[in-house]
């Protein structure tokens, strides 16, 4: 978080815009994306980090990326505290927003599985891929368009 003191040391805004932090941010963003890809690839090959652990890691890394884009590229970190707060405080609504709705979806699934056994059975029944008029990707693979 920035404060007024950091800006007072500069006589004008030009000094804040040297290109070094931009490239540093770029390498951080690229690095985080590569880490995500490596983790995903390792998981695909070995299945080692369990999916639920990976999902948590992805979410943390995504928030880190979001922080760097907003703070450095959008320059919010170098604005005064009033501006930071007028953006950051409403954004906290997302915390409620995500938790409330995702847990609602989860509770819907659990209730439905408890009271609608037919639906539960259907949703766990594998279906042969070549059946039906629409071909599944596996069947379509050889002739699939570029």
């Amino acid at each position, binding site marked *: 978080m920035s404060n007024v003191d950091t800006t007072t040391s500069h006589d004008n805004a030009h000094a804040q815009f040297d290109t070094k932090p931009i490239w540093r941010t770029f390498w951080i963003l690229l690095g985080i994306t590569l880490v995500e*890809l490596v983790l*995903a690839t390792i998981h695909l090959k070995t299945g080692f980090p369990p999916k639920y652990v990976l999902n948590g890691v992805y979410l943390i890394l995504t928030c880190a990326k979001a922080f760097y884009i907003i703070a450095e*590229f959008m320059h919010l970190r170098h604005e005064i505290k009033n*501006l930071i707060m007028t953006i950051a405080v409403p954004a906290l609504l997302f915390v409620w927003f995500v938790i409330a709705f995702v847990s609602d*979806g989860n509770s819907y699934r659990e209730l439905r599985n408890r009271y609608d056994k037919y639906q539960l059975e259907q949703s766990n029944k594998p*279906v042969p891929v070549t059946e039906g008029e629409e071909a599944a990707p596996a069947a379509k693979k050889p002739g699939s368009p*570029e």
Partner: protein
Amino acid sequence: MAQAIPAGQKWWSGGKSPFNVEYGKLMMWYFLMSDAFTFGAFLISYGTIRFSSNSWPDPNEVFRAFPLMGSTHLPLVFVSLMTFILIMSSVTMVLAVAAGHAGDQKKVTFYMILTIIGGLMFLGCQAWEWTHLHGEGAWWGRNPFRNSNGSIASTNFTNFFFTITGFHGFHVFSGVVINIIMLIKNLRGDFAKRGHYLMIEKAGLYWHFVDLVWVFVFTCFYLL
């Protein structure tokens, strides 16, 4: 625009912006705030539906193609390229803003052109991906992919995918249009005449926001 701030500045005593930014820039922030909630609502409804489903198609099975590579199994490669292109164009946009701060009209032109090219490349990639998925039989209301446990998937997956990436793609498209307008204004010397490049900064804020949304779309659709 940030100017020298005396220590112990009283921001709320009137006569000046308590946010120390120009009006238009503040309003751009508030617009992006509201746009963030629009995208947030889309992505959270996607998450709600996904949590309410017993099984869901595996993104590594769906998004595995790369242009000119035929049916090779390459999960995540193409979308990583798209992510890289968008981050790169975000960097050139900041460099354009930095050049604007330095009052360097030629450099602003140069970086704006690079940013526009990056945006067009991203749109091209997305057009290819949509065409490819459409060729496999996926579209709004049509889902050829099976859930990861082999059961029949509902059309929720394709509906959300095309709606959200489409909405994001439309933002990229408007961003490119805005950037082209800024480039033309810069070439005409409008900003040099005005003495500041704040318009480039506002366009830049919008462009970074598009990049920011892509970070979340990437995680929600391709990684999770």
